């Protein structure tokens, strides 16, 4: 049983901002979907099914909002699936959609992920007052800060590495018109002296809270042949999960992440990711996660990720650019953030990334993670149709 090849022929996203006060929830997801359809030069009638993803329903205070979004996404009379795998959901949603094409179930699928955090407050949604617990942190920063410290301790990385990543991603974001944060005057010194929120994580090393949506149109061989612009081909895609908390969990480099990457590389025939992959869009909500994931993803040896950062390898002009879009550090509509990584990887290999295009990008990794660093979803896209 061989899978059908899957191509990304449409990409759309909203301008990510703190609060999209001009649109309803439907209006927000619609905007991304319309842009993806326009990119593919397709109409609603061309779409066979819709796969939608977002993080917890409490973020907008609508239970299973896809029910109310059926009309906005042209899904009436069609199949509609709703995925929720915590922070990795944007990636997982794209993979579920891709599988519909790969399995030959549908010809052309629209997939959308979103978060409209301004409707409520992510801190609130993440910190519902569950009895008998003694919550010690609110939101993700406090949760992940001890893992960052463990990484620093384990690798001996100097404490300046996080600020280098943050400064790089914020500067990259200036080239991305959809990015939330456009901090034109930001200096490295400002990053390094910004307030310490959850020591060792500084304010400027954390992601913003955004309203935003992202959409992709996925199709097979015949759809790709009709596409007006170059498609991005899916060379490999995988999800892996491990428990939230368990004896022996490696929070710094979770096994699920390593296994997920290995599966994707196997599918894509990648044996040396550092050389064979041209760039990566990695889910980095706190700057230190860039060196951590570089190791987890096999781009650097254990303990060496921070050295790539220091050497400028992950800069836009380095030999492994990471997050040329500005990444999660510059835009974080939580449920959409993973799909944005996948979408940006696709834009790069299509040569359509605009000002933040990496010249000659032929293979790019899109990565997302979520939960207690336990859910991973990744895909590797390329400019060439896979030959399997």
């Amino acid at each position, binding site marked *: 049983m061989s899978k059908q090849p899957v191509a990304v022929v449409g990409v759309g996203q909203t301008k990510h901002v703190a609060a999209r006060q001009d649109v309803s929830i439907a209006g927000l997801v619609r905007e991304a979907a319309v842009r993806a359809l326009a990119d593919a030069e397709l109409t609603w009638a061309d779409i066979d099914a819709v796969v939608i993803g977002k993080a917890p329903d409490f973020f907008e205070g609508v239970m299973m909002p896809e029910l109310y979004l059926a009309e906005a996404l042209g899904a009436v009379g069609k199949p509609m699936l709703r995925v929720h795998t915590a922070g990795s959901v944007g990636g997982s949603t794209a993979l579920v959609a891709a599988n519909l094409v790969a399995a030959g179930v549908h010809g052309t699928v629209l997939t959308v992920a979103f978060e409209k955090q301004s409707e409520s407050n992510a801190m609130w949604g993440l910190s519902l007052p569950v009895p008998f617990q003694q919550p*010690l942190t609110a939101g993700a920063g*406090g949760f992940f800060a001890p893992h960052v410290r463990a990484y620093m301790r384990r690798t001996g990385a100097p404490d300046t590495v996080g600020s280098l990543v943050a400064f790089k991603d914020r500067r990259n974001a200036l080239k991305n018109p959809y990015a939330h944060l456009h901090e034109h005057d930001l200096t490295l010194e400002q990053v390094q002296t910004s307030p310490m*929120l959850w*020591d060792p*994580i500084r304010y400027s090393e954390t992601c913003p809270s955004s309203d935003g949506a992202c959409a992709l149109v996925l199709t097979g061989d015949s759809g790709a042949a009709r596409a007006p612009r170059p498609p991005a081909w899916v060379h490999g895609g995988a999800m892996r999960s491990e428990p939230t908390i*368990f*004896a022996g969990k490696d929070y710094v480099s979770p096994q699920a992440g390593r296994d997920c990457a290995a599966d994707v590389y196997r599918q894509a025939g990648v044996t040396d990711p550092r050389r064979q992959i041209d760039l990566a869009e990695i889910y980095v909500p706190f700057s230190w996660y860039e060196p951590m994931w570089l190791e987890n993803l096999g781009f650097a040896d254990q303990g060496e990720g921070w050295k790539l950062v220091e050497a400028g390898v992950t800069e836009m002009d380095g030999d492994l650019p990471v997050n040329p879009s500005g990444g999660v550090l510059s835009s974080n509509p939580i449920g959409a953030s993973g799909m944005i990584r996948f979408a940006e990887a696709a834009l790069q290999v299509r040569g359509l990334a605009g000002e933040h295009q990496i010249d000659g990008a032929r293979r790019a990794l899109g990565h997302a993670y979520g939960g207690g660093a336990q859910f991973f979803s990744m895909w590797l896209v390329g400019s060439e149709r896979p030959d399997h």
Partner: protein
Amino acid sequence: MTTAAELLAGIPELAGAEPVTRVTIPARLEYTHTPGSAQTRFLTALPDKRLLAERCPQCTRVYVPPRGACPTCGVATTEQLELPHTGTVTTFCIVNIAAKGLNIEVPYCYAYVLLDGAHVGLHARVGDVPYADVRIGQRVEAVWNEERLGPSLASISHFRPTGEPDADPESYRRWM
């Protein structure tokens, strides 16, 4: 993109009306939370200052608090054992930002404390020590919240250094 004002302009009765753009819709749902058997066993021992862990019958790893299943084996943890009130800091951060609803004075140290005999860290505060002196590997002991002893993790006020030498990294390396 069309705005509400533009749409209203076409309707004589409403032309010029200040358009509604946002609406506040409160919602309140009341639940009764029950934590399940394993957590109940753990929680109900706390007022007696007992830390009740559970061991997985398959992999023999010790979980505290127990959550009903050994997450790697997928089987119930039913064997209970009491752990001492001492442990080792395996990692931590210093929280400098007050979170709404948490009611904890900042700054404070949020740490993973690997209780002696356990294989997962307990999430707790470390106090009674300058934060600059908190270390990975530091030995700590529980300080009970005498006024608020009850079936809640709030029964433990925080952990404080015991003054012992730091633990051998090999003793906690795998159990962060």
